[in-house]
């Protein structure tokens, strides 16, 4: 059994505490590139109070975590499951690494792996869904590493910067995830370099 359910190789997930985290999340919003990669809604500036209100309202439905680095305890982003269909055992995942210098270094992928472990081994979900913008190739690669499979392209789904862009749909089934755990177990038994 995994020693600490919420710990990966680079990060740990800690429960989102809106009183502590709202300021930080509002500050990340200053980076419009971050907002445009994260969400299809128009980028806006929310003050901390509004962020807090939003999460307090959504609190009962979502499972939201902050991503904290293991080496210096810095909170670098968030990850959450929401849109649950408990009968089918499905949910949607959203992730954002707000601290620029921590993007593209495996922190997000590690957070996603930890979250999926929680989703499948504790929440007993059957499937996790996500959407990603076609232009966010770094994210697509990260999701593939975490085990997500491509399931289709929504053509010209969003309109930004005077142009239409595709949105990619990805999903991971519990059976995909279980297979991946077995494969990783096999690869750990033979000494190979570990990729984050």
């Amino acid at each position, binding site marked *: 059994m995994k020693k600490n359910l919420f710990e990966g190789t680079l990060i740990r997930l800690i429960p989102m505490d809106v009183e502590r985290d709202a300021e930080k999340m509002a500050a990340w919003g200053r980076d419009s590139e971050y907002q445009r990669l994260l969400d299809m*809604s128009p980028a806006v500036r929310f003050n901390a109070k509004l962020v807090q209100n939003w999460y307090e309202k959504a609190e009962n439905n979502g499972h939201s975590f902050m991503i904290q680095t293991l080496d210096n305890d810095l909170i670098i982003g968030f990850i959450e499951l929401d849109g649950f269909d408990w009968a089918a055992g499905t949910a949607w995942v959203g992730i954002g690494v707000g601290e620029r210098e921590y993007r593209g270094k495996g922190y997000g992928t590690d957070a996603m792996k930890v979250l999926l472990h929680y989703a499948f081994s504790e929440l007993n979900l059957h499937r996790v869904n996500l959407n990603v913008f076609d232009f966010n190739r770094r994210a697509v690669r990260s999701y593939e590493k975490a085990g997500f499979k491509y399931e289709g*392209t*929504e053509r010209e789904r969003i309109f930004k910067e005077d142009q239409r862009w595709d949105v990619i749909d990805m999903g991971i089934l519990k059976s995909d995830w279980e297979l991946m755990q077995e494969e990783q177990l096999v690869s750990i038994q033979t000494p190979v370099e570990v990729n984050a």
Partner: protein
Amino acid sequence: MENAMIGKSLFTGEHVELTELDPEKDSLLFSTWTSHPVFARKMFHQPFKPRPVSELKKKLQEMLKEADESHHAIYFAVRKLDSPDLIGLLWFPWLDATHQTSTMHLSFGTEQDFDSYAGETLKLALYYAFMELSLHRVVVSIRADEPKWMELLEQSGFLREVLRRENVFSQGRYFDEYLYALMKSEWKQKLSEVTE
């Protein structure tokens, strides 16, 4: 230049009409539909449970009020021209004005009404979606076990963009879910082929 809006009805087809939904009159029949898992899931996004007429009436009133206030949703009751009875429901649950897209749901109370009126109603619905709501794309999601829907959508020019594996649970098993989409340009192309 001739104004195509004058003398044309968006709501009236050859046999059916897109009409207002009336919770007082329609809830009774509606309650029999919401006892059907497929319909109930599309309508309420919650684990399936049959709802009594009184609760449904309230729920419909709330939905209409919210749609009116937010301008994000639109509902139509589909009726035959010569009868006040509800035969189907057409709704756009979340209009995304920024990106000019929306999901569209169309459901009929009986198989027979689907066979007789689904094609005609879909034509009205698409005209409304593209020429009145000015959408760039319309999305319809169906379960993999709805072959009649699949055929109708494909005949109408929709493309299957996404296959969400095992995303729906009903009758003791998982079903794949398909996302079908039609772009305004494709719809226009199809119309011109038909009229040529």
